[in-house]
């Protein structure tokens, strides 16, 4: 075996080349020069919506030379909530995480402030609504950036034919496609009369009183329409007020006109109620209509999404935003902030909303009149009023304006629907209020 000898010149040249390569390596812009970024997105239930969000992120990643990993985490069985809790405990996991409603506040100590992202976005895309501020901000610090993926309004979705036939209400005339609402008479009194008429006609409104989100959201909006708060913005218990009493009285009348099993309803029950053709109205984002479009097109063609009825203290609609949050333990905060800005550009938001068929709602004021809501059919314009384009209702979340960490417990313990059921099932008003007061006292833990 012959062995090649390395000359002194060759050795020096090789050493010089390797040193130069090592020194300049960090400055060479390789395929993933800007590091890695992992994202936990909410797993969308609209087919194809995940593909669009992935495409948007990958475009950014290619431009910025970031190695991105996306996990789509379902909210079925609260898997996303369990993952958030696990990552918060372990202080490791994704860099960016899609958190629903209350979770930015629940994890506020572990989230990176995002004022430097949000302030330019608000300047560019318009103001965000009060619920986004309430859930996404703490002491002037933005904990998260509102994200359209999964954000929704749970307003009424009515059957045009049944509302006309039994309640003598033309929902299309009240909320015309392409024009502002003419809904001055659309009050809780009218709503109650319509509920009674449809119940008599054999098509009751499908409003649940179970323990899950859809049930609580409707109760929250109705309570707010009466000005009823269990805990006020300062954190003081305000259960024993006339407003709460009025809301309970209203619900007692309403429950009599609802299906008899509403106490057991979950978030799927109202969808099934509409799609099966058994009810004249449900409170839901357009997912039920989208399912009907696929499975029962004759019912979908009669659906119209519109605004909430107004109460003595205003017109409120349940709004549940999702946020993109940046964990403070993230190792690539700059890249994450760059992506947050990119994904919140009007063009990207429009792509995402289109991919969801109009289900997703942007939080920014300038982005509530996208074409997709005007074009969706059948019937044409059915989703026109879904994003609240004329701001004629206040977007709110149940249990607000209590401090979010208290409100989250009122919300998830379903205190509002439980109060309504207790009172309806024969508990006295004072006992119901006393029970709710006791519950709220327990939620004050810090």
């Amino acid at each position, binding site marked *: 075996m012959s062995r090649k000898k390395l000359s002194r010149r060759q050795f020096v040249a090789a050493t010089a080349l390797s040193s130069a390569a090592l020194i300049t390596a960090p400055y060479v812009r390789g395929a993933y020069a800007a590091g890695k970024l992992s994202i936990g997105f909410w797993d969308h239930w609209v087919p194809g919506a995940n593909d669009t969000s992935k495409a948007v992120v990958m475009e950014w990643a290619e431009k910025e030379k970031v190695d991105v990993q996306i996990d789509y985490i379902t909210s079925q069985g609260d898997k996303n909530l369990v993952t958030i809790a696990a990552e918060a405990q372990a202080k490791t996991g994704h860099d960016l995480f899609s958190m629903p409603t209350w979770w930015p506040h629940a994890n506020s*100590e572990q989230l990176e402030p995002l004022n430097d992202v949000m302030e330019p976005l608000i300047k560019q895309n318009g103001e965000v609504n009060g619920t986004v501020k309430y859930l996404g901000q703490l002491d002037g610090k933005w904990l998260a950036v509102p994200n359209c993926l999964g954000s929704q309004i749970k307003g009424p979705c009515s059957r045009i034919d049944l509302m006309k036939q039994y309640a003598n209400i033309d929902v299309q005339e009240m909320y015309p496609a392409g024009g502002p609402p003419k809904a001055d008479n659309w009050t809780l009194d009218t709503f109650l009369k319509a509920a009674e008429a449809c119940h008599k006609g054999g098509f009751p409104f499908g409003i649940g009183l179970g323990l899950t989100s859809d049930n609580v959201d409707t109760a929250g909006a109705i309570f707010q329409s009466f000005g009823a708060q269990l805990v006020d913005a300062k954190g003081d218990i305000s259960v024993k007020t006339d407003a709460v009493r009025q809301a309970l009285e209203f619900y007692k009348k309403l429950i009599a006109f609802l299906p008899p099993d509403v*106490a057991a309803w979950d978030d799927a029950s109202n969808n099934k109620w509409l799609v099966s053709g058994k009810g004249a109205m449900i409170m839901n984002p357009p997912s039920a209509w989208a399912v009907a479009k696929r499975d029962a097109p004759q019912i979908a063609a009669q659906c119209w999404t519109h605004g909430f009825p107004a109460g003595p203290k205003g017109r409120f609609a349940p709004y549940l935003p999702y946020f993109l949050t940046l964990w403070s333990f993230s190792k690539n905060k700059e890249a994450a902030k760059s992506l947050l800005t990119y994904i919140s550009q009007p063009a990207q938001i429009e792509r995402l909303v289109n991919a969801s068929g109009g289900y997703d709602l942007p939080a920014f004021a300038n982005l509530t009149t996208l074409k997709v809501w005007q074009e969706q059919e059948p019937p044409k314009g059915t989703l026109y009023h879904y994003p609240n384009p004329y701001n004629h209702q206040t977007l709110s979340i149940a249990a607000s304006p209590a401090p979010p960490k208290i409100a989250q417990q009122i919300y998830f*313990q379903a205190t509002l629907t439980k109060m309504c059921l207790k009172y309806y099932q024969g508990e006295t008003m004072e006992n119901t209020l006393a029970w709710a007061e006791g519950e709220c006292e327990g939620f004050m*833990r810090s």
Partner: protein
Amino acid sequence: MVDVTLQPNRVGTTHAARRRNGLRNALGRKSTVAFLMALPLIILIGVLVVYPAFYALHLATLNKSMSKFVGFGNFEFLFKREIFWMVVRQSCLFAISAVIFKALIGFIVAHFVHNVPAKKQRKWRGMLLVPWVIPPAMSTLAWLWLFDPSYSAFNYTLGLFGIGPISWLGEIGWARFSVILVNVWYGAPFFMIMYLAALKSVPEQLYEAAAIDGANWWQRIWYVTLPMMRNIIAITTLFSLIVTFANFDITRILTNGGPLDHTHLFATWAFRVGIESSDIPLGASVSLFMFPILAIAAVFILRDISKRGNEA
């Protein structure tokens, strides 16, 4: 002395040899081999059971924001909550009634299967084990559709006879009945298979002797079968009690704790408090409260078994 002088390394060599022999002896011992073979499982249990248990204990001593040690503060808080005691009562009602029915049905079905000719027995055993083999989350979804508030197949069938409709999951009594029923359906095959194994190990001579003594069917069960099965009944009951107390999926899927929290168990309420309401220390405290209840049950049942073992 001469040896030592001539072979200065001998002491060290002997020690090393003795050490080697010691290791060989240790490895040769059955108990060491058994320990080494069980070690992977011990490590697994340590990582997946012991560590989380201690971590849960640690969490249960923190305040809601997990920034301060509060000792037993979370338990003191829980003891003052009406809903906590409701969950305790419901968990006991759920676990005890479900275990009694599972044991009863398992015992009866095991006797039926035991009396089936050996050839056909395998088919029956296989079929009867199906509920226990299907993942409970899946089978409970099927039950949910049967109980569905608006489209219940049970109500449809009852309606054909002019009965109902029953709000299976919407009324407190029926909702409790439904979750217990599904748990019994899921768990009875386990009892059946354990009891069947126990029945097969009862010596036939005992029954023959009893028959000669003129014992009737009931006396044979009471004086022969049951005493021979006592240990397996005790162990199965304890095991099932632990699993049923800690049940989560059936209640979570069927009722989510409703109506009005009247079907919440420790696990479902711990999840509601800990994960959904973001109060992890309180959730940990709720789930830990199961531990003393089950520990007391375990002590009594296992003491009884070991006492009988000593008597034997």
